[in-house]
């Protein structure tokens, strides 16, 4: 039945003849592993095309929807993270393989007469490949892609005379917006694939016309004697190679947990842009070409490199393919390659030791993790950034900076009239306060409370108890809490501080539910209330100055400053944090800090 159907098709299409032509290509000198790189690239291109098409079923290219749709692919679908990971790291794999293929072809001298056009179409393919990388980077519309691509379009702008026009054409306007995305998307999924397929077709057709370029040591005699058919001899090797590529790629994606998605692009932020690794050498080059020399790095040096590649088949007229006879060309290409590698290493090395970059990456990770949590509630039609605008902590930070930072220092910035809010409400913060309330970090000379004269361990216990009252303390230690409770209630604290009855008044602030959301709200509204500082108060009250939402946001922000606390209202797994004596996996030891950890935990 199947045979008959095949015959019917073959009679009408000549499929069989076509397949014979395609597969029975003789490979002179025999099938070899050295020839697998080109087909490996074709395999990766097909993989990129398939994964790209599937993602296009979910992706939406506009400045208000791009981030949300990529977030959806990444976080809300079953295999989206994996497919996106394949696509993302697949592009890097293609670049690596293209470089290997490039060197294999170069070493074998496969660009020489009569294969000049093979080589030139190959150089075009390499340019298209980099175009894919450049245009694809922007599409998620996250911080990294947005800012890195800004550098690229600004580089286009430095081309003399036409630069600005080309830039505006690419951006779809004078600044980044909807048309930037639609244009980059069009380039990435229509123009570049069509161009690449066209050139690939010519590249492969020319390759079939001229056949493989064998190793220079293979004799003419062997070339004539040893002829393997393309199918199955070479195809088998190609398939095995494709499997190896896919296994490594899939393993890499699993290991990395998929491709990164940073927080939505924020045009108002001052993000330090870094391109994908395969553009780092160009990026580093620009650091040495400043002022009037900029054009040397952006246009002249890259153009010289490209022109060299294009004319190489015409200037290398040596008759032998042996590398020994082509030393000047080897020297040139090697110098270029070593230069590129050196620049890449320099760029990576610099970033790894730059404190600003390291801090920014930490912040970016925190923001990204937070963005994912906020986006789960749905993204407002205003776009990805709206998740932060509707985020109490984000609003709270703004309110803090405008109203509180003048007196309360935070992370080294701000006034010193009131207590320092760095790590506010954490065990460490409270411990410091108990130890010396008159420290500059707390109440300074205006402090009335005297240091608690107890062993340090007891101070930790008291902190544990006082903070645990608000119910969102991470890793509560019950033993310590009980000791702290005893010390607080039966010790000297309770002489001045009421505790247990929220409305009780004594000479010092009421510590019932100390630093809980309600406590903080009441305090901010009326710090001179008798249950707080009374007549000794120095802070202005904010009753009536903040609306309920603003007060709520401010308090949530203040709570988020503590590395020991979790915002219960934000914890997706709604159960309260369980008390435990053991060190839980929440112990802050991940390098990018507790905040990320908190958010990552909550997002699970």
């Amino acid at each position, binding site marked *: 039945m199947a045979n008959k159907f095949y015959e019917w098709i073959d009679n009408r299409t000549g499929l069989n003849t076509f397949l014979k032509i395609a597969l029975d290509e003789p490979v002179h000198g025999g099938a070899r592993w050295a020839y697998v790189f080109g087909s490996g690239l074709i395999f990766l291109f097909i993989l990129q095309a398939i*994964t790209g098409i599937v993602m296009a079923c979910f992706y939406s290219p506009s400045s208000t*929807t791009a981030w*949300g*749709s990529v977030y959806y692919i990444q976080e809300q679908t*079953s295999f989206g993270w994996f497919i996106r990971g394949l696509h993302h790291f697949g592009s890097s794999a293609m670049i690596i393989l293209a470089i290997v293929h490039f060197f294999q072809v170069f070493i074998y001298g496969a660009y020489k007469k009569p294969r000049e056009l093979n080589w030139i179409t190959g150089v075009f393919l390499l340019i298209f490949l980099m175009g894919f990388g450049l245009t694809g980077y922007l599409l998620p519309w996250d911080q990294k892609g947005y800012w890195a691509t800004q550098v690229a379009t600004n580089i286009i702008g430095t081309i003399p005379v036409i630069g600005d026009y080309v830039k505006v054409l690419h951006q779809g306007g004078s600044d980044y917006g909807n048309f930037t995305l639609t244009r980059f998307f069009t380039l990435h999924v229509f123009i570049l694939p069509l161009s690449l397929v066209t050139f690939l077709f010519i590249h492969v057709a020319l390759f079939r016309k001229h056949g493989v370029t064998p190793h220079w040591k293979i004799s003419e005699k062997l070339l004539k004697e040893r002829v393997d058919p393309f199918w199955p001899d070479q195809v088998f090797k190609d*398939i095995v190679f494709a499997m190896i590529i896919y296994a490594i790629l899939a393993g890499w994606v699993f290991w990395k947990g998929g491709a990164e998605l940073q927080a939505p692009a924020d045009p108002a932020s001052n993000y330090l842009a870094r391109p994908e690794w395969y553009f780092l050498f160009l990026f580093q080059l620009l650091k040495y070409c400043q002022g009037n020399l900029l054009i040397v790095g952006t246009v002249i040096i890259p153009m010289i490199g490209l022109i060299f590649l294009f004319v190489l088949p015409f200037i290398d007229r040596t008759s032998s393919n042996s590398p020994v006879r082509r030393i000047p060309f080897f020297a040139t290409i090697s110098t270029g390659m070593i230069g590129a590698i050196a620049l890449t290493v320099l760029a990576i090395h610099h970033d790894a030791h730059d404190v600003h970059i390291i801090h920014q990456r930490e912040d970016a990770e925190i923001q990204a993790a937070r963005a994912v949590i906020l986006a789960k509630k*749905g993204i*407002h039609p205003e776009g990805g950034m709206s998740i932060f605008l509707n985020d109490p902590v984000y609003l709270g930070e703004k309110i803090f900076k405008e109203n509180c930072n003048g007196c309360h220092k935070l992370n080294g910035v701000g006034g010193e009239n009131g207590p320092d809010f760095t790590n506010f409400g954490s065990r460490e913060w409270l411990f410091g306060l108990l130890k010396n309330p008159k420290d500059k970090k707390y109440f300074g000379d205006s402090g009335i409370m005297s240091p608690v004269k107890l062993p340090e361990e007891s101070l930790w216990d008291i902190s544990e108890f006082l903070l645990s009252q608000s119910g969102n303390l991470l890793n509560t230690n019950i033993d310590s809490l009980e000791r702290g409770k005893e010390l607080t209630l039966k010790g000297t604290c309770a002489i001045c501080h009421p505790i247990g009855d929220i409305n009780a008044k004594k000479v010092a602030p009421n510590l019932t539910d100390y630093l809980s959301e309600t406590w903080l709200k009441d305090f901010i509204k009326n710090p001179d209330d008798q249950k707080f500082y009374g007549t000794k108060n120095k802070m202005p009250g904010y009753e009536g100055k903040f609306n309920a939402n603003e007060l709520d946001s401010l308090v949530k922000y203040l709570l988020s400053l503590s590395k020991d606390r979790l915002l219960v209202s934000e914890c997706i797994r709604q159960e309260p944090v369980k008390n435990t004596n053991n060190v839980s996996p929440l112990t802050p030891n991940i390098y990018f800090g507790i905040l990320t950890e908190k958010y990552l935990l909550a997002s699970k």
Partner: protein
Amino acid sequence: MEKSRRSFLKIISHILGGTLAAGILAPIIGLIIHPWLKETIYGTEDFIGIGNLDDFPVGIPKKMTVTSSKMDAWNIFEGLVMGSVWVIRQKDNSLKVFSTNCPHLGCGIDWGNDVNKFLCPCHEGVFDVNGKVISGPAPRDMYSYQTKVENNTVFVNYKNIT
């Protein structure tokens, strides 16, 4: 010998190629069928609040707009007008909530204050205050919705029509 080696290579190539294709296609298909596995567009609430119990006079139908929010893939759309309903508070404080659409052809039903009846202007359908069809072409009584009252707020299950 050479021939059998090639036949073997062909079989192995088919097997390896098939495995590779399956390994690639499995997650691809898994992603494509996402809309079968998960709701992508949905209202965020089953019971939608439409007002306070005290807002509704006993025995007199009051027309209320139903607004809710909708998740559409990654987006949330808040304050969307879903439609409107007729609400009649009973003497025992229970509520009857009817669709404003006529069960005949979906025209908007009005309340005739002077005749104390629901009137459909399109084909002169008439319903009593309990939604029962009195005359006209309507094949059934007015559509109604489940309701509940919590903390004095009236909620309507706008998803389920009965």
